[in-house]
Every structure is written in C-alpha cells, then in structure tokens.
C-alpha cells in the first residue's frame, strides 16, 4: 500500500485533529524535533534538580578541576575555572528560552496586528505599514541588533529589545500576505454584509485563518532567536557573566582552543541541538497543517 492509500484508510472515522496528529507521528524528523525541544524545555525548567552541579551556574571557582576533559562525572568536561559545563548548559537553556519567550511574546502580537491592519484596510494604511516594514527588512538584522545593544549598553534585556525591534517585520509580512489572499473570500464579504465591525472581521474571521501559519512560524523562529541571542553574547554584546549563557560560554571557551576543545565545542553543539529541534518541529508542523510560511 502506498503512503496516500494508507493515509486514506487510516483517515476513516478520524477527526481532523486525529488526522493531523497521525500525519505528525508518522514523520520521524518531526518526532525527533519534538523530542529535542521537549528535552531542552525540561532541562531548562528543572535545571536546579537535573544539573549534576547546580553551583556551577554561578561564580564557583574550583581550580583543581579546571580544564577537565569530558568524563562520566563531567559529561561535557569542565571550564577554565573548573565549573561543570553540562550544568552550565542546562542553565544556559533557561536564558535562551527566556529570550525566546520575551522576544516572540512581544514581536508576534505586534507583527500580527500590523499585518492584519495593512491587509484588511488597504490603501494608505497598507502603503505606510508595508513600506515601513520594507525599510526594517532592508537592515541586516544582526548588524542592527549589534548597534542597538551597543548604544543601549549590553545586557540580556537590551538584547531582547534589539531582537524584538527587528523580529515583528516577518510576521507582519506573513499575515499581510495571508489576509490579502483571504479578502476576496465569501466569508469576509458575508461578515461585512451582516454588519460585522472591522474589529470582528479582523480578529474573529481573518485571524483564525492565520493561526496555523503563525504557530509554524513561531516554532521556526524560536531556533533563530536562540541563534541570534547566542551570536550577540558571543560578541560580548548580550548576556553578561556570570549568568551562564551558551554564546558567552563558546566565546570564553574559544580562548582555550585547540587544547581544551570541549570548552567551546560543547556549548556550541548545545546551541546547535536546540536550533535543530525547533527547526525539525517547525517543518513537521508545517507538513502537518499544510501551510506556507
């Protein structure tokens, strides 16, 4: 039996939700992605209990164990002052995920509302919003984020502000495109004829049709926000020590290359792992819900 046939026979008597889950669970890449994301989130939330050495998250100094290669006791080795790198990675995920929640929590609603407004009203509103979005998109994001954090003095909150200021544009563009496509649909016209308010049509009629695209985009975004935050702190413009941050750890560790390779490589791979997870998950969601982003 070919794949579509199987899907057909399996699809009998299923709700669309069950059908979507079925498609997701038959996609190995998506399941791996979901597993990775889950492990990162659990690791971050329960870091104080899961970390073999929670005190490594802070300013602990233990020179006797410095530059220790990976062993069973220290899975990722120890750093230049003898802190357990695995424990610091778990705490580092807290910072990364905090950044993701902070950035997307502000940028997504902002971008979505602007995109809805531009697509729904058209005319001058559309021109102003979309031209402004174009300008923002013309700035290389990392360069701009660097400039903003530098001017505002580097720390976690400012890194968050800088990334947020650039991130909404992608959501504005996405929602604008979807809404533009939906405006000629009968249900919009019907709502208008029935006397629905602008607010009702935008948020009750159009927005639900954007939700699946938004959730796929959020999953794909999460990985890139982590990458961005890590790149900023790698350059010394993000999270400041002693807060354990993956980018900072790579940067500090790279001073001890090539002898103590694990000190830069392990946090680097930890960043890669998280980004990989969110990417696979996002791709899986996209296939499942069959949306374009």
């Amino acid at each position: 039996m070919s794949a579509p046939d199987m899907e057909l026979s399996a699809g009998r008597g299923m709700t669309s939700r069950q059908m979507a889950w079925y498609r997701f669970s038959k996609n190995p890449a998506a399941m791996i992605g979901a597993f990775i994301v889950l492990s990162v989130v659990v690791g971050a939330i329960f870091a104080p209990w899961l970390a073999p050495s929670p005190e490594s998250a802070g300013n602990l100094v233990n020179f006797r164990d410095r530059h220790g290669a990976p062993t069973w006791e220290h899975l990722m080795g120890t750093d230049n002052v003898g802190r357990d790198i695995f424990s610091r990675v778990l705490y580092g995920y807290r910072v990364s995920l905090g950044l993701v929640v902070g950035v997307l929590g502000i940028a997504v609603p902002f971008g979505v509302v602007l995109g809805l407004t531009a697509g729904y009203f058209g005319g001058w509103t559309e021109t102003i919003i979309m031209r402004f979005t174009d300008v923002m998109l013309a700035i290389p994001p990392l360069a701009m984020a660097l400039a903003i954090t530098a001017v505002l003095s580097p720390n976690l909150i400012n890194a968050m502000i800088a990334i947020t200021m650039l991130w909404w544009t992608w959501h504005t563009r996405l929602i604008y495109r979807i809404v533009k496509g939906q405006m000629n649909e009968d249900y919009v016209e019907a709502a208008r004829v029935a006397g629905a308010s602008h607010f009702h049509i935008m948020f009750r009629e159009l927005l639900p049709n954007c939700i699946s695209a938004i959730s796929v985009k959020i999953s794909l975004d999460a990985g890139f926000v982590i990458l961005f935050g890590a790149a900023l702190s790698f350059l010394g413009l993000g999270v400041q020590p002693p807060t354990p941050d993956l980018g900072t750890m790579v940067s500090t560790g790279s001073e001890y290359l090539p002898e103590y390779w694990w000190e830069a490589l392990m946090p680097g791979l930890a960043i890669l792992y998280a980004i990989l997870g969110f990417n696979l998950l996002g791709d899986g969601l996209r296939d499942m819900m069959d949306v374009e982003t």
Partner: protein
Amino acid sequence: MGVVALLHILQRAASLFLVFVGLAVLIFVIARIVPGDPARIALGPLASADQVAEMRQEMGLDDPFFVQLWTYLSGLAQGDLGKSLLSSRPVMDDIMGALPATLELVLFTIVLQIVISIPLGVLAAVYRDSWIDNITRVISLIGVVTPGFVLAIILQLLASYYFTSLPVTGRLDPGLDFVRGPTGMLLIDSALQGRWDVFADALRHLFLPSIALAAAGIGQVMRITRSSMIEISSRDFIESARAYGIPERVVTLRYMLRIASTAPLTILGLEFASLIGNAFVVEFVFGWPGIASYGVRTILQKDLNAVIGVVLVSGVFFVFANLIIDILLGVLDPRQRLRARR
C-alpha cells in the same frame, strides 16, 4: 533588453532609493533617541562640563532635531558620514579602507554558494528520493541549523589538528611582501600583478572563513533549487521538449535550470542580509580585517557615527544586491518583468 525592462529597473531603483532614505532616517532617529550624551561618551567620564558643552556645540547636538537630521542627510548625500570618535578620521575613509576585505569575502562566499548548491540541488532533483537526495538533505539541514560562529570554531579546530596548512586568521601571510593594487581585493590585485604566490596565499586564507559564511545559504539554496526543479519538470513545455526528442541533459540544464534558477536567486538575495550579519561573527572569529570587524570594534567603543555608518553601508549592500538580483531575474525569466508591471 527593451524599454519595458529598462522602465522596470528604473522603477525598482526609485523604490530602493526611498527605502534607503527611510533607512538613513530610521537609524539616525534611533541613534538620537537613545539615552546617553554622545559628546559625553566621546570624551569619556573624566571630561569637564565645559569640555562636554564645547563638544556638543562642535557636534551640532544643541541644534533642533530636524536641523540635525537635515545636516546629517545632506552630509550623507555627499558621502560624508561624520568623524569616527575612535580613530578621529572620517568614518567614510575608515569604512572604505575595510570594505575591500569584506567585499572579497562576501563575493567569494556567494560564488562558493552558487557553485556548490545549485549543482547539488539539480542532482538531488534528478535523483529524487535516492541516497544522493538524502545526503543533500542532511547537508542542507546541518548548514541551516549551525550558527556561523559555532561552525567557524569547529573549522578552526579541524584546521589546527588536521589541516595545518590552512591559516585560521588574517588575509595574508605577514611575511609576504605585497603592495595592494587598485581594488584592495587581494585575489584580483595579485592576479593583475601576476603575483601568483600571493594569490595562492590569499586563497588559502579565504577558504575557512568563506565556508563558515556560506554554509547557511548553501543549505537553503540547495533545497529551493531541488524543489523548483521538481516543480518545473512536470510542466507542459518540458514534456513537449522531451517529446521532441531533445536529449534529457539539454532539457535539464538548458530548459529547466534556466527557469528554476530564479527561485534560488531570489533566496540568495534575501539571504544576503543574514550573510552580512553572519560576516560580523565570522570576521570576528577569523580576525578578518573587514567592515564587520570594524563594526564590532566601534560598537564596543560606542563610536556612534561609525556604528551608524556601518549599519547604513550594510543596508546599502543589501539593497544593491537585491536590485542586481532583480535585474538578473528579469533577464532569466521574462514573465517576472510582466508581473512586476501589472
């Protein structure tokens, strides 16, 4: 190219000009509304209040906001980006000095991306769902999810253990005696002067940074090439070309690839912004003396004029890259021109 195409290009150029002016205003506004007195930052915490006041006067900071904006924009129109607080030279001169290194790195990276990813994408499409396709899929995933600086460090590590002949910092072996020529790009200058030893050394230095920089784009361009080749392979005009008995190789390379190459080109243009962004970290890791290194240095020193200059120049880069790609798209696929006119 006819009048239509020319009009199309002019129209695009005009809209890009607007984007550019918007960009300049936006950056200026951001730089002015942030807390902190630029004059105080320039002089440091030890300067007296009188000195700061004098500096404010000199920098025009006491003028009304719109006067400052106007002064800035009219300076910009003449290529004047103000003075760097760090080097006390015009920012434009500093940037022009660092630009060739970045240009060389970025151009070489783009060539690398095209040369690697388009053939691999075509192969993946032709041998769909075979092991070749699966390998390219894994390569592209790795490319997309690996942060530039992590890849840069992995490459440095590999070079220091296994490929010891590959240099990991700088553009040229300091022992080589070489006077740069007209372009400042070492590959071109050395070739013009016939100094092939320098050419080879510059190429060796370029190798690792450009791979670190190219990886993300390679992954994306490869996947897009594959999917657009597959999409086009089922179109009627391809079927009829095959029915005429045109050899498969010609159909694939001459007919399909020409149309299919518009999608990867578009992605290359969009990717350009993140390419420049990545150049910041990659230049930093490899000690590449380009505009991004200059940018990071001035940012850490809060050299505001220089920072604005760097962001602006990278924006211009992006805008121009997209204009060029737009023109190429029009040449490759005439339908694009008509669509844009509608």
